[in-house]
Each structure stands twice: as structure tokens, then as C-alpha cells.
């Protein structure tokens, strides 16, 4: 009898699936996170809204920023063959914000970043409307990425992804397996934005006097048009791109047309041509990037308007430390060739930049450190930002930025030294 009981217990025990020793330290409890916390998985929309508030303090002049912004975005098919994309931002500046004129409660500004229609066929696509076009492989330094102008109006307050300006562009693309050919036509090039609004104010700030006459010879539509051709090719771990472009300089050059009775200046936007090549290659955990651009007929402000040719070179790398942290290093140098009758007025410009980032707590907390230095102007930018995700759609960011301008030698970059600390909070839905 006892033997029977023993056998029964043994059989019963074996059928109970008793956890083996290796299960120690593990939970045997089942749990479905998707059913916890009221997770809605059925929500499906093409809209994306961002409501953000930022409050910032600057060391210089005690100015602050106080901004509420709403950014609606939508993209998707309209009908069967047309894709529509909208990205706009409405910003309201508070009474104490440095942009709000004295005596006013607030001021507002609307900006459209992209608004375009697109359609595509078997191997081609056409896209027309307001859009930001990025060229090249570099993320920080600009060698061939000169099509979309920059918004430097508030370098200490503007996130890099917000610093590119959209333009009215018609794009035609042709796709062939591993390659693609793109042609962009821009009917009116935008200009780079600086802290001082308007060319007259910029020149006045530079000359220290308002006793001059400025003729803005900004060409109108089509005369200020641009054409860019780019061929991209991706094969294995190598990507290449070739660019041919006829561009309008985003920064004006100034010509003196008369000295008396008061200086008379004329702002011109020279046209130049660019041939560029870029390559990126992945080797182990490093992405190497090289870009070279030959620009003919540019008139940079730091050459006092002298027309030069320039060979711009850039090298960079992105290092991934086993998904633990990432480092990006980029450097560029712009070798100027002056006309034989003109002596070089400045040293060749250059730029170096580094960006380090690391995520903590499963991407809940992100830390980004950034440093860059460029010549002319001995502009040094350093920043540190901490981003914390309170929830999936609720993000808080604390960023401290310092822009140091060593010398103001030319109109561009007409930047200002500034130290800013910004607390941003964003809610997405």
C-alpha cells in the first residue's frame, strides 16, 4: 500500500511540472503589460500635434524667453495617388519674451516648415511645395548641405532640427534599384536669418552708424532660382552621392557703389555653381563620412565681397559604443582660391564639432553634450541637454547653451555671444 502511495505521489509530482532548479530567481507569474494601464492600441491617426512651452534665461541683459507653441503635422495619402504633408508651427511669445515689443502682452509668429504634395509612379516621384532639402552625409558641419538656409536668429534658443528653413521647391526623383536621381528646382531662394532683422539693421550694427544708403538688389522670383541635381547610390556598406548645383548664395555680398555724400551699398546675392561628392561607409561600429565640394564664384562676407573659388572638404565619423553611447566628430576646411589680382583677406575658414549622447533607464533619460568651434569669428558653441520622458508623449528637456563670438569680422555670421538655459516641456498627441 505504502509503495502504491509513493508511486502515486511521484506521478502526481511529475505531472505538476515542478520548476527545476534553473528557474530559481525567475518569476513564474504571467503578466500582460498591454492590458495594464489602459493602453489604447486602436488609436490610428495621421495627425501629430505638439504643444510645447519653453522658459529660458540668458545671462546677458537678463533677457528671457517665454514661448508657447503648437505644431500640427499631418501626412498621408489624399485620394489614391497623392501624398500630402504639412508641418507648421504657431508660436506665441509671452510679455517678457525678448521678441515681444515693450508694452505688448504677447506677440505671435506662424512658420510653415513644409507644405507639399507628392505623387509617384513606377520609378519616379514628383514633389512640389514648401520643403526642407538636406544634402550630404554630415550632420553638423556644412560642406555640400547648402541648399536649405539656416535660421541663426536665435542660435542659443533654437534646437538644431528647427534651424532649417523651408523653401518653395519642385522635386523630381527617379529610382533605379540601388540608386536614385533627384532634381530640385527652387523658384526663390530664402536667405539665412540672423539675430538682427533686416539687411539695413545688420549693416548698421556692423558699421556702427546708420549714415548710409543700402540698396537691396535681391533678385525676384526665378532670377533667384536654384537648380540641384543629385545622384545617390547605396551598395552594401557604402553610400555615395554626387551633386551638381547652380545656387544663389544665402548670405548677401555688399558692393560699394558710392562713397559720397554718404556711403551707398548694394546687397547682392551672387549665383555660384557647386560640384560635390560625398561618401559614407560603415566599418564595424563606426560610420565614416567624407564630403568634398568645389564652389565656383562664391562671395563670402569674410572676403569683403571678393569673388573666390573654394574647395570645401569635410570628414566625420560616428561611433557606436555597443549601443551604450554614441560619439559624432566632424571637421571641415574651406580652401579659398582668390583671383590673382587680389591678396587673401582672411585665413581659410574651418569648423570642428563633437556630439556625445547616451541614454539611461531604457531611453527614459538622454544626455547630449555638444561642442563646436568655427573660424572666422572664433565662434564657439557648447551645450549640454538632459531629456527626460515623463511618459511616452510627455517630455521635459533642460538645455544649457553658450555661444561665444570671439570677433565680429564680417556680416556673416553676425552672431551674438549668449548663454542660455532653457527648460522645455513638450506634449505630443
Amino acid at each position, binding site marked *: 500500500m505504502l509503495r502504491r502511495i509513493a508511486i502515486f505521489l511521484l506521478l502526481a509530482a511529475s505531472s505538476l511540472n515542478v520548476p*527545476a532548479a534553473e528557474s530559481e530567481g525567475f518569476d513564474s507569474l504571467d503578466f500582460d*503589460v498591454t492590458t495594464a494601464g489602459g493602453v489604447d492600441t486602436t488609436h490610428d491617426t495621421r495627425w501629430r500635434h505638439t504643444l510645447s512651452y519653453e522658459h529660458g534665461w540668458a545671462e546677458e541683459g537678463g533677457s528671457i524667453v517665454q514661448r508657447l507653441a503648437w505644431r500640427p503635422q499631418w501626412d498621408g495619402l489624399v485620394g489614391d495617388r497623392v501624398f500630402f504633408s504639412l508641418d507648421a508651427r504657431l508660436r506665441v511669445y509671452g510679455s517678457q519674451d525678448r521678441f515681444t515689443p515693450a508694452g505688448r502682452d504677447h506677440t505671435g509668429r506662424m512658420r510653415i516648415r513644409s507644405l507639399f504634395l507628392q505623387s509617384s509612379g513606377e520609378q519616379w516621384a514628383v514633389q512640389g511645395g514648401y520643403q526642407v532639402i538636406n544634402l550630404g552625409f554630415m*550632420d553638423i558641419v556644412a560642406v555640400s548641405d547648402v541648399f536649405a538656409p539656416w535660421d541663426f536668429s536665435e542660435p542659443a534658443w533654437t534646437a538644431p532640427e528647427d534651424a532649417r528653413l523651408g523653401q518653395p521647391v519642385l522635386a523630381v526623383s527617379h529610382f533605379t534599384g540601388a540608386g536614385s536621381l533627384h532634381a530640385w528646382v527652387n523658384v526663390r531662394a530664402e536667405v539665412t536669418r540672423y539675430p538682427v532683422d533686416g539687411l539695413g539693421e545688420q549693416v548698421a550694427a556692423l558699421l556702427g552708424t546708420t549714415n548710409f544708403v543700402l540698396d537691396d538688389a535681391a533678385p525676384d522670383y526665378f532670377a533667384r532660382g536654384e537648380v540641384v541635381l543629385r545622384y545617390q547610390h547605396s551598395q552594401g556598406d557604402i553610400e555615395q552621392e554626387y551633386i551638381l548645383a547652380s545656387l544663389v548664395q544665402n548670405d548677401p555680398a555688399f558692393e560699394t557703389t558710392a562713397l559720397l555724400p554718404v556711403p551707398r551699398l548694394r546687397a547682392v546675392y551672387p549665383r555660384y555653381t557647386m560640384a560635390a561628392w560625398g561618401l559614407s561607409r560603415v566599418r564595424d561600429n563606426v*560610420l565614416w563620412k567624407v564630403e568634398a565640394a568645389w564652389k565656383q564664384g562664391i562671395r563670402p562676407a569674410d572676403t569683403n565681397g571678393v569673388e573666390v573659388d573654394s574647395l570645401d572638404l569635410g570628414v566625420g565619423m560616428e561611433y557606436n559604443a*555597443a549601443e551604450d553611447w554614441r560619439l559624432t566628430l566632424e571637421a571641415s576646411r574651406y580652401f579659398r582660391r582668390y583671383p590673382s589680382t587680389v591678396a587673401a583677406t582672411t585665413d581659410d575658414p574651418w569648423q570642428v564639432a563633437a556630439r556625445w549622447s547616451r541614454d539611461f533607464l*531604457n531611453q527614459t533619460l538622454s544626455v547630449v553634450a555638444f561642442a563646436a568651434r568655427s573660424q572666422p569669428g572664433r565662434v564657439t558653441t557648447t551645450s549640454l541637454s538632459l531629456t527626460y520622458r515623463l511618459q511616452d508623449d510627455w517630455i521635459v528637456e533642460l538645455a544649457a547653451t553658450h555661444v561665444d563670438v570671439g570677433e565680429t569680422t564680417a556680416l556673416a555670421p553676425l552672431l551674438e555671444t549668449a548663454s542660455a538655459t532653457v527648460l522645455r516641456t513638450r506634449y505630443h498627441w
Partner: protein
Amino acid sequence: MKISRNMFQLPLQFAEIKLSSGRRLRTVSRRDNVQDALVSREGRTPGATAAVERTGTYLSRVRKCRPGERQVEGAALYSQVIGGLEHVFNPFTLSLLAGLVFLVAPPAPVAAAPDPRAIMQQVIDRDDGEARYTRSVIATCRYRKQGGKIKCVERPRVKILEGVEKDYGPRGRDTRSVTIVLEPAAERGIGFLQYDYDDPDRETDQWMYLSALGKVKRLVSGKTDEPKRGTLFGSEIGYEDIERPHTEDYVYTLLREEEWDGRPTWVIESRPTPKRARRSNYSRAIQWIDRERMLTLRVLLYDRGGKPVKQITMSNVFRQDGIWVVGRLNVNNVQTRRITTMKTESIVINPEVDDELLTLRTLTDGTFRERRLAALRARLRTE
């Protein structure tokens, strides 16, 4: 079970063909590599995989079915690799199979002491279709145990992803996929294009479309000879957890056979080889393998110091188009006390996927991408 060339290169095979009635037809042949013909993975549309043809007395080839050939619903064709067995094919049964079409179905239990490496190879090679369109949810939270139950102590972090992937390469082991983030709103519209390679020395190619910058950016993954510490979208699913393993990288031991979650399983321990150990976050894994479906049902993972770190469980297993699909995957990190549930909300197996959808074009050409995805979504609704 995935039918691949790799399996057929193994030295000794026999094939069994099982009809839905439960009747088993053992195929016998004196010819070597008779299953080579099974390599045709085309035409694995629902209900139709391969036709077995008879030539002379012997089973000589298994080919893709032709239009109009009669399909045997629920019939199952499978083969099992057992080292050391001399294979003998019964010519009599073969005549019954000529011209028939079979569904892919579970393999038969191993009759003799099974080779754990061969089992794991079958798990890796298990048929998951040549292409898939999925909509998945990944939810993660920190948790605590209270009253014998697990409770989230924070609002779960949720990602909803829409993805298309397709197998490539000579053995169908390379994969190209495109994934679009649908939720959360903060990341909506971000797209990933990824090429994964079976070659262990070849890095994953990955590109990301940054909608805020309007730019496609190439990403670099970690070096192949060091452990990847990153996780999938901040969840507890590590990049290593979703890599396609290579059996030559591990030493396997069959610990026992037991039932897990009502299913008969093999319990197999795997330890990385010294070469693999350098780039693995784990020193040891114990896996419960469903003996009939060749699915992993549970994995216990130990960190490099030998301490328990993660328990991965697969549940809500269902069969679609003759292929077993894991409906829910749970990853419980017992060290960080975080748990992730990944759910397959919906899936279309073997949809028609245009190869160009899995190129860089898909990240930037909105019309092109959305029209093709709309066709896949429509198929989801009709099924």
C-alpha cells in the same frame, strides 16, 4: 518548419508525410537528397506548398504545385532529421502522394534521443513565411509583485509599430524590413529600414528617416565582437534577443523532456562558445522547445556573471496560413524589475511584397510607401 537548403545538406534524412486524417505516409527512397526538391519555397500560398511527384518506383522530387492540382486540406508534409538512421523509402506509399499539394505543418516528434543542435537548427529554420506584414504593440513598465501578482508601478511605455519584412538570400535567411512607428505620437512617422544578414560577421544595415529633419540617416550598430547593450525601442527586448542565432556559436545540452504550458517540450541548455561569449550579454540560456511546433515557449537567460537576468515567454500561439505565430512575447528582466509585452496585433503571412518597398525609396517617397502599405492593410481587413 522552415524548409531550407541548410537542412538538406545534413547527411541522413527520412521524410514523413502526414494527412489530416492522421494517417502517416512514410516516404522511403534509396536516393540521396530526395528532399532537395523541397527547397522550392515559392508558391507557399495558404493551403499549398509542394507537390510530391513520383518517378518510376521512387520518390524523386517534390515540386511546387501546378495550377489545378488538387489540394489536400489539412494535410501535412514534414521531414525530420535524425542522424545515424539509414533511410528507406517505401515505394508503395509514394503513389498515393503523386500530384498532391500539402500544407506546411509541424514536424514529428523525434523518435530516438534527439540531437539538441539539430532541434535548435529546426527551431531557427522554422517556417515563418517568406514575407510578413505585421502590426505589433510593445508595452513596457517597471513592476512590483503584490499579493502574488505583478503590477505596473508606472504608466506603461507603449510603441505601436507597423512593419513589412521579407526573406532574402540563397537560404532565405537574410531579412529586409521596414518599420514605421505609429505610436507614441512623439515618434510617429519615424521609419526604419533594416537589412539583417545570416552571415555572423556581417553587420546589420540600418537607416532611419528623421521626419523632423526630412533626412534619411544611416545608423551604425555595435561591433560584432562585443555585446550589444541597447534594447528595442527602450523595451526589455535586447537587440541580442531578436538576433537570428547560429547553432555553431553555442554548445547545446538536452536536459530533459517535460510539459510546459500544456505542451510537450524539450528543455535545452545553450552556452556560447568562447568566440560568441565575447559578444554576448548572456553566459547561459535554457529553452523550452515545443516538440511538435518547433517553437520556443520559454527562455531563461543568465547574465555574464551567471545570475538570472531575463525570462522570455511566448504564448497565445496561433496558426495562420499553416504557420505557427507567437501572439504574445513577454520579457521579464528580474534584475531591473521591468517587463515588456510584445503582441502581434495582426499579421498577414506571405503577402505580395514589392522588393522596392524594402529600399531607401520607401523612407522618402510617401506616395510609394503609403500606397503599398494601404494594400497590405486592406488585405488585413479582408482576412
